[in-house]
């Protein structure tokens, strides 16, 4: 039998008809539709249990409480802790994307020596050699931690120097340090008890202090109210976020904030609106009115408004002594609702930006902002979790990233009382990392470890019998029977809050109005962010919306 082309066609028709009554086309359609919705290149989340753990954010010195979802040992979600006594469940916009930071393409994964790959051994040898040849300067961006104590002890043991980078909120308190003798790092702002706050450009609602701290206070006492309990007066040349929500916006000319402070102080003293008798500003009210662009009447009106709801405090965005002098006139220094001392200790810090006279090596902790570059010829050993590019460090050493290392959490810089919390590590780095403190402990075995120091601090708190331990309830420390229980609760996310330092809180001596000076301008919270990269999801705020601008790798 010859098979013809027609046969083939007829056979095919039969096969096609037959196929229709088999499962083949229907199954293939069904299975292909499933296959086409499961492309292998589309990443899938992990399967398995998700645990919720508590820790604290260490990407800036505010130490906000975190509730983190962990799946398979990796971070899958971040939220605030509603019962946290300071942050009240709030976080900055960047923290919500921080769990992705550990995978950022710019994550530093190997030791780099002058930008070429090296090893931890080589770094250790180079550092040991450097230590034997001259003094070492250690720079810390997050002072007050147990790790900070390790860094400081190392520097002291080697007759080197320990310096710190202070946050903007603390730097603004520098003038008071000169007039009260109390170090700025031990001062705080008692905003909880203030009735009127005059902010000279400080971004109180946009990253000043720990995110939940002032914003919650303001939201509960002032937002949307015609006659709020807390009056926020924002002095600023442009309508910032804080200015747009403030009770009153005072639009001064750019750079004339200090002049306004002087003008207000003058009116307060002249019209006897305050009990203080001095110091009197040297600038005349007319000049103040002119330079600020507000006019004399406006300044008079403002001064009267300010004292209408005491206690009053002025908050500056920089270390401008004029605003600080205004606080002296207002009687806000050492008073309830003003600038207060939060600890009876006497610990002063050497600022990191003072010129380094002589050093053989400089160690920079990973908590120091990337754009901080010490002006020195010394060999720089910089610890960092993310590589910000360029930079002047000789050695770049991979440090633990977000929640990869247990640490303690000292009080946020603006708090009026002491606080203490613990932040356990919730994930592991995928490559070898060492913090500066661990590295130095390896060089000098006589140093205590951070764990030992943390343990000792918990015991100290227990023995002091002072303060409250805050988690879902608030328990006075005096009610704890054993230090171990206290420490356990701290590791589980409780926060210790100290008591206010009673009177006399501060003694302030200021005879003359300070001369105008060029002050270092603070940049608010975006300058507190220490990582040189932003979380990837920050693109939502900048590129994908017009909400914020990206300014030199930071967020504005």
């Amino acid at each position, binding site marked *: 039998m010859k098979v013809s082309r*027609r*046969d083939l066609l*007829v*056979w*095919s*028709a*039969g*096969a*096609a*008809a*037959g*196929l229709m*009554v*088999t*499962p*083949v086309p229907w*199954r*293939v359609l*069904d*299975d*292909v539709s*499933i*296959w086409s*919705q*499961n492309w292998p290149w589309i990443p*899938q*989340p992990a*399967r398995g*249990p*998700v645990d*919720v753990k508590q820790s604290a954010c260490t990407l800036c010195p505010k130490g906000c409480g975190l509730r983190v979802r962990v799946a398979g040992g990796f971070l899958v979600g971040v939220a605030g802790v509603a019962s946290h006594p300071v942050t009240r469940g709030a976080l900055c916009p960047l923290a919500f994307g921080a769990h992705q930071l550990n995978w950022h393409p710019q994550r530093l994964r190997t030791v780099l020596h002058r930008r070429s790959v090296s090893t931890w051994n080589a770094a250790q040898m180079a550092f040991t050699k450097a230590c034997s040849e001259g003094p070492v300067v250690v720079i810390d961006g997050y002072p007050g931690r147990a790790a900070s104590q390790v860094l400081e002890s190392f520097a002291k043991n080697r007759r080197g120097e320990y310096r710190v980078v202070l946050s903007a909120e603390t730097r603004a308190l520098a003038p008071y340090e000169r007039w009260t003798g109390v170090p700025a790092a031990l001062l705080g702002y008692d905003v909880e008890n203030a009735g009127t706050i005059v902010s000279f450009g400080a971004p109180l609602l946009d990253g000043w202090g720990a995110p939940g701290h002032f914003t919650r206070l303001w939201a509960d006492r002032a937002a949307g109210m015609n006659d709020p309990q807390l009056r926020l007066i924002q002095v600023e040349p442009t309508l910032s976020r804080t200015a747009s929500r403030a009770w009153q916006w005072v639009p001064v000319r750019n750079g004339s904030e200090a002049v306004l402070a002087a003008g207000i102080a003058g009116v307060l003293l002249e019209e006897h609106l305050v009990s203080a008798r001095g110091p009197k500003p040297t600038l005349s009210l007319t000049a103040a009115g002119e330079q600020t662009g507000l006019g004399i009447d406006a300044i008079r009106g403002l001064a009267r408004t300010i004292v209408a709801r005491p206690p009053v405090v002025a908050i500056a965005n920089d270390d401008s002594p004029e605003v600080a002098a205004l606080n002296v006139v207002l009687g806000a220094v050492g008073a309830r609702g003003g600038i207060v001392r939060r600890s009876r200790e006497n610990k002063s810090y050497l600022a990191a930006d003072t010129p380094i006279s002589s050093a053989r090596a400089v160690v920079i902790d990973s908590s120091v902002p990337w754009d901080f570059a010490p002006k020195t010829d010394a060999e720089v050993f910089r610890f960092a979790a993310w590589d910000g590019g360029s930079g002047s460090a000789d050695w770049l050493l991979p440090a633990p990233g977000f929640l990869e290392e247990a640490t303690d959490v000292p009080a946020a810089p603006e708090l009026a009382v002491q606080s203490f919390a613990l932040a356990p590590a919730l994930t592991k780095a995928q490559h070898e990392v060492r913090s500066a403190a661990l590295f130095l402990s390896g060089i000098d075995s006589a140093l205590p470890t951070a764990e030992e120091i943390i343990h000792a601090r918990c015991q100290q708190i227990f023995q002091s019998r002072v303060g409250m331990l805050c988690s879902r309830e608030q328990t006075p420390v005096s009610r704890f029977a054993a230090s171990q229980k206290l420490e356990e609760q701290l590791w589980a996310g409780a926060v210790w809050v100290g008591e206010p330092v009673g009177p006399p809180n501060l003694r302030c001596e200021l005879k003359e109005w300070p001369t105008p000076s060029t002050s270092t301008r603070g940049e608010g919270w975006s300058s507190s962010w220490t990582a040189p990269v932003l979380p990837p999801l920050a693109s939502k705020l900048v590129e994908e919306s017009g909400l914020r601008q990206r300014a030199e790798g930071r967020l504005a």
Partner: protein
Amino acid sequence: MRRSLLVFGLGVMVAMLAGWVVFPRALYMRKPQPLEFRHKTHAEKSGLADCNECHALRDDGTFAGLPAMEKCAGCHAERIGETKAEATLVNNYIKQGHETPWQVYAQQPPNVWFSHSIHLKRAGLKCEDCHANYGASDQVKVYEVNRISGYSRDIWGHSISRLHRAPHDGMKMSDCEDCHRQHNADVGCLGCHK
């Protein structure tokens, strides 16, 4: 004409053969489980008669699914029996600290959300209603994977035609929908999808 009919018929027959006999076999590929786990042994000898002993609900309500290695290590940290299966478990997985790479029969695509809590506690279903009496089985069930979709044969069900299907044979979306419709439990798309 007759020849055409014959040829046509031949085509139909070949297609039917290919479709009903060859295709179901070729579509699936057998994949062995890492070891021969016997439910019956565990139920009878180890007092683990209840499914929840190993397949439990966690505190937050989520389902543990296949027990983690931790659970097995509770008894099998060291060898307690003589079988080859146990040797594999202890030597290759528990001692190495790896989770046993089970092939999951009921594995659904990642966008599916199925809550065991809701079905067990609110709907009052029993394990056997969807998983047959697997807990009493003597042997580990053969795992066959669909070569096209990548999912287990148990999702479509064993019968290629889906006629005369047992209630627990098949876990396609239409099977879920049938039961939901029967019990008047309309939850909407996002009720079951992530």
